[in-house]
C-alpha cells in the first residue's frame, strides 16, 4: 500500500508533489540551454548539429531532470537516518556519475567521460549524502567515483555494438532506480515534517550549469585518440 500512498503523494502537497514539476522545469531549461548553446557556440546548421550530438544531449537532459528531482527531495528533508542517507548518497552518486560519464564518453572517449562522470557523481553524491553526515558523504564519493568510471567504460566498449540501444536501456534502468529512490525516501520520511521550503531557482541553476558544461564538453571539449 505504501506505493499507492506514494503515487497519491505525487499529486499531494509534500515535496513529492513537486517532483513532476521539477522534472518539467529541468527539461525546459535543458532545451533552452541547448538552443542558447547552439546559437552562441555552433550555429553552422541545426540539422547537422542535432545529427551529431543531439542524441547524447537529449538523453543527458533527461538524466539531469531525474537527478535534480532527487536533489530537491533530499534537500527538503535536510537530515535523514544513517541507513537511508547512505542509500541516498550511493544511489545518486552512482547514477549521477554513470549517466553523464556514459554520454560524454560516447563522444569524447573514455578519459574525458570518466573524469567528467566522476566529477559530477562525486559532487552529487556528497551533496545528497551529507543529509546523513560523513557516512553518506563517504558513500557518495565512492559511488560517484565508481559510477563515473563504469559509465565511461561501458560506453567506450559499446561504441561499435548497439550504442544507441544501450544508451536508452541504461537511461530507463537508471530512471527506475531513481524513482525507486524517491519512493524509498518518501517511505522513510513520511512521518517527518519537511525541513526546507524552496522555489525552483536551484533546479533551474543546477540544470543550466550541468547542461552547459556537458554540451561544451561534447561539442568542443577535448577528445581521446579514437575521437579526433
Amino acid at each position, binding site marked *: 500500500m505504501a506505493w499507492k500512498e506514494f503515487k497519491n503523494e505525487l499529486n499531494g502537497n509534500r515535496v513529492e508533489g513537486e517532483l513532476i514539476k521539477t*522534472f518539467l522545469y529541468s527539461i525546459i531549461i535543458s532545451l533552452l540551454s541547448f538552443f542558447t548553446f547552439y546559437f552562441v557556440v555552433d550555429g553552422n546548421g541545426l540539422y547537422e548539429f542535432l545529427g551529431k550530438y543531439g542524441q547524447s544531449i537529449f538523453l543527458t537532459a533527461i538524466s539531469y531532470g531525474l537527478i535534480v528531482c532527487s536533489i530537491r527531495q533530499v534537500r527538503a528533508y535536510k537530515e535523514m537516518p544513517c541507513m537511508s542517507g547512505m542509500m541516498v548518497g550511493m544511489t545518486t552518486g552512482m547514477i549521477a556519475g554513470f549517466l553523464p560519464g556514459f554520454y560524454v564518453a560516447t563522444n569524447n572517449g573514455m578519459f574525458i567521460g570518466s573524469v567528467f562522470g566522476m566529477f559530477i557523481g562525486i559532487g552529487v553524491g556528497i551533496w545528497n549524502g551529507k543529509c546523513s553526515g560523513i557516512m553518506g558523504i563517504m558513500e557518495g564519493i565512492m559511488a560517484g567515483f565508481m559510477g563515473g568510471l563504469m559509465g565511461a567504460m561501458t560506453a567506450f566498449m559499446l561504441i*561499435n555494438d548497439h550504442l544507441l540501444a544501450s544508451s536508452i536501456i541504461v537511461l530507463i534502468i537508471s530512471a527506475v532506480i531513481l524513482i525507486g529512490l524517491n519512493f524509498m525516501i518518501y517511505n522513510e520520511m513520511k512521518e517527518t515534517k519537511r525541513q526546507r521550503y524552496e522555489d525552483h531557482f536551484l533546479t533551474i541553476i543546477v540544470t543550466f550549469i550541468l547542461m552547459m558544461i556537458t554540451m561544451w564538453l561534447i561539442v568542443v571539449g577535448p577528445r581521446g585518440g579514437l575521437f579526433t
Partner: protein
Amino acid sequence: MKNKSGNTKALFWIFVILIISGWFVFSSADGRAKNIPDSSRSLGELQKITLSTQNYNYYPNIIKVKSNQPVEITLDESVRGCLRAFTIKDFGVSQVSSNPSEKITFTPTKKGTFKFACSMGMAYGTIIVE
C-alpha cells in the same frame, strides 16, 4: 490533493516536450558509416589494403581479397589506440602495428567470409576471401 490538476498538466507537457524533441533528435541522427566494399587492389601477387578509421571503426570495414595470394594490410595514421592491435582469428593473425610502416601480412588459405577486429573486439569488419 489540490496539486492534482497542476501535475496532470505538467505530465502532459513533459510527454509533449519529450516526444517532439525526441522525434527531432532521432530523426536527424546520422547513421554510422556503412561500408564501401572492394577496397583491395591487386599488385602482382601481393594484395595491398590500407585501412583507416571513420566513426570509430575501421574504414572500409568490408574488404575483398583472393585466396592463396598474400595480403598486406597497412593501418594508416588515422588508426589509433587499441585499433592498432589487429586480429583475424580465422587466419591466426594477431599483430600490433605501432605505425603505418609496420605492415600486417598473411595469406588467406580458405574461401569465405570472416571477421577482422581490434584486440578488444570494439572495432571490427568483414574480410571476404574469394
